[in-house]
């Protein structure tokens, strides 16, 4: 959806989309745009290069191109939007918000930037920052139920009950079955003691999304407030069944319902589960804080060249956050740099176990196996990485090196050629191709 928005924004330049780009031949498009830029620099061409890189799943290179386009023409709204969106995908919310803010400085009523920035603010709990953006958004785009519902949620969080109710109701006028507005308004009314008005909304929400735990949870909580414990218990059991089994609040409400029904044993069991989950939540938060501190320390040690110390800090962080794939990947990388291939393999495999579709983890495992001279395993892992992301030149290059070591020169040349095609400016890939006996890439 975001990509479509960029393309719409590109229309503002009055330039026709380039044929190669339109037919999806992004590698060719990059070459053509670069050639055009060489003849006559054009900021829009740089932006198209970024878009092509993005389509080829080269987010880092895409970001660099978007950044270059934005620097080339600071008023290029589409470049800032593309930067914001790409940073958002990389979960770098700070940079994404900064990019959207630049868009809004250029176009205060840019709907995409208003929506994206307000979503990011809400995601990070910055309601006061989101508020003016949402107010502008609903003023210029009156038919957006999501903006209305978001604004309602912000008003509710700020204690403006009347404002919240009005926005939720307007969202429901636009779309009568809009789930966030149904739950938002239902919850608001239930908390104000207006049970008769709240229940139909929450019941409707549960019908609209019968598999969403939130609707059952909010309905169960509202029923508890209204003293309808039997139905509350049923709804809360549904909430637990539909994804709420790890949410402590579901069991707290279930305990309330059981208490209301005089079911002492069931209440005790629900409270015990609540305590267990609440403790886990608290422990996880504390572990995340401590692990983040250790990762920071590791980064500093790494910068000072103390790889050993950095690895030790990351090991400690892993003990706190054993299920963090990124941390495992970092550890694998450090052990690889320290040539501790067994440890590196263990961590890389653990990271892959958690995130099997991440090509980077498989690429690293391939490098580790190559370092350990386990060439068949290296080849298998690099082939998997190449399948997951065929546009990463280093993967093909590494694959070429492995098969060359295995004695398959022809296959190696093929892989090196792919690497050179994807990254024509990379000298090391060219050298590999040449030493394997392949043709010089022009």
């Amino acid at each position, binding site marked *: 959806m975001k990509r479509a928005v960029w393309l719409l924004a590109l229309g503002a330049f009055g330039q026709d989309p380039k044929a190669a780009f339109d037919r999806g031949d992004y590698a060719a498009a990059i070459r053509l745009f670069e050639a055009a830029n060489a003849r006559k620099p054009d900021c829009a061409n740089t932006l198209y290069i970024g878009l092509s890189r993005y389509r080829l799943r080269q987010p880092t290179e895409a970001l660099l191109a978007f950044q270059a386009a934005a620097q080339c023409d600071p008023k290029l709204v589409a470049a800032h939007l593309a930067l914001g969106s790409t940073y958002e995908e990389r979960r770098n919310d700070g940079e994404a918000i900064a990019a959207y803010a630049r868009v809004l400085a250029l176009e205060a009523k840019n709907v995409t930037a208003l929506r994206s920035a307000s979503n990011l603010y809400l995601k990070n709990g910055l309601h006061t920052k989101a508020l003016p953006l949402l107010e502008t958004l609903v003023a210029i785009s009156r038919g957006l139920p999501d903006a209305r519902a978001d604004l309602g949620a912000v008003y509710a969080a700020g204690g403006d009950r009347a404002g919240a109710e009005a926005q939720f109701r307007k969202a429901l006028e636009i779309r009568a079955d809009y789930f966030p507005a149904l739950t938002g308004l239902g919850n608001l009314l239930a908390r104000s003691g207006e049970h008769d008005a709240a229940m139909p909304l929450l019941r409707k929400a549960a019908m609209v999304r019968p598999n969403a735990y939130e609707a059952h949870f909010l309905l169960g909580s509202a029923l508890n407030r209204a003293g309808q414990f039997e139905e509350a218990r049923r709804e809360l059991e549904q909430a637990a069944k539909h994804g709420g089994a790890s949410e*402590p609040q579901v069991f707290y409400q279930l305990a309330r319902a059981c208490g209301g029904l005089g079911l002492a044993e069931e209440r005790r069991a629900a409270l015990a589960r*609540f305590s267990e989950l609440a403790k886990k939540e608290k422990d996880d938060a504390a572990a995340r804080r401590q692990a983040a501190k250790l990762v920071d320390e590791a980064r500093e040690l790494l910068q000072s060249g103390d790889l050993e110390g950095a690895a030790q800090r990351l090991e400690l962080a892993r003990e706190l956050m054993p299920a963090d794939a990124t941390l495992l990947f970092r550890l694998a990388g450090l052990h690889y740099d320290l040539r501790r291939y067994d440890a590196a393999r263990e961590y890389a495999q653990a990271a892959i176990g958690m995130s099997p579709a991440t090509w980077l983890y498989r690429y690293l495992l391939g490098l580790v196996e190559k370092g350990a001279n386990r060439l068949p395993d290296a080849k298998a892992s690099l082939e998997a990485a190449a399948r997951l992301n065929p546009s990463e030149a280093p993967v093909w290059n590494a694959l070429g090196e492995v098969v060359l070591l295995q004695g398959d020169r022809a296959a190696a040349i093929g892989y090196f050629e792919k690497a050179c095609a994807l990254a024509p400016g990379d000298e090391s890939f060219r050298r590999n191709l040449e030493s394997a006996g392949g043709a010089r890439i022009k």
Partner: protein
Amino acid sequence: MRYFLALGLFGVLASAPSAFLDATASARIGFVFEAGKTPAKYLIEAMGGGVAMIDADGDGWLALFFVNGAALVDGPVGPLPDGRGSVSRVRADKSEPRFWNRLYRNQGDGTFAYISDKVGVRGHGYGQGVAVGDCDNDGRPDLYVTCLGANILYSNRGGCRFEDVSVQSGIAKTPGKGLGVAFNDVDRDGWPDILVANDSFPQQLFRNRRNGTFEEAALPMGIAYDEDGKVFAGMGADLADYDNDGRSDGFVNGPANQGYGLFHKGKGLFSYTAGVAAIPRMHSGWGRIFVAQGHVMDNIERTQPGLRYRETPLLMRNRSGEFIDVSAQAAPPFQAPMAARGAAFGDLNSDGAVDAVVSSSTGAPRVFRNAAADNGWLLVNTIGEKSNRDGIGASVHIIGESGHEQFGYVTTAGSYLSAHDKRVHFGLGRDRVVKRIEIRWPSGIVQTWNNVAANQIFEAKEAENGSF
């Protein structure tokens, strides 16, 4: 945004002039609250500390107990496994005498004397709040001090000697982030229980097991979390019967953005009651309001010019239910700003007028002596028999000879971090006789007394079939 309000509602008839004098210098209290301020500006530095009025030695005069902070030391608490660094954490160091909690004896002449550090209350950890109650029903008021970490229960051994019984009582087993604390008998078994407000930590309810030990039971009793099962930043705590059903309900206030929690006590458990701004102190006659206040941030003026770190106290007169700010016309103590935190109310000089002691986050406390002299008064000192020994939780209803009715409630809680005189004060105006006193004890016993003379500390002992 945190803004501390230590609030007292006390019964001085509306016609009485405002007559508070600044008795700080003459009281000769040498205490200075030591927050252990650091450049890091830890939140805890801005929170404390509390003050309590307690008749520690049973001589009828209220002593003053001050909770103190500690040095905050950011230091290693253990090595990292690789030996290349250490795990660091901020810890409270109370070893220096300036950080000790202190008890000052009321010498009966308007002055207070620091007894000694051998009283047994110097404490450990970073102290915050204090409550007064007779945990073991031995007739001697005990002290409960909240701290960051494990709280402390000091058992009064008589003769102004206290013993830290936190470990043997089970209190130390469940540390928290305690601030406000309140005593009351929540299960009406005749033994006082303790509610602790915790900052961003589950609230705690210590049930008295009637053998010198307590069990923490806030979760099963339904008072640990808000109605969503979420932790909130508890600041002040109170236990009082807001709906006159004879059971003490719980109240825990928090920062403005989190609201306050009112927990209604049913037959067995507490249940969260939503949408409450403040707990009403029931039927308080025509009491005035005294608010000691100060902002949590010592540089708030820079970012919010309308606010002040140091504020003047607020005095509001009650005119038939309408409160009017009379601070500007009040005596000089009300014109001096301070970073106020706790405030304790009680009759320090046994003259029938309610005095106040206000603690500060930045130094010495201030003593407000109430010099109102002309009006009649009555202090009701409840002594439970079947109920808890203090009679905490008892409702007191009086009718003066003029027919003016007033209601009171026996408690030491209700002010941020601080504990009041547990005796119930009534201002009587020109009445010289109280036609009728009715006390509804926590045990359910209802007792009445007729034609009680004004201007006395009236000792009301609980008895079956009591009508006097």
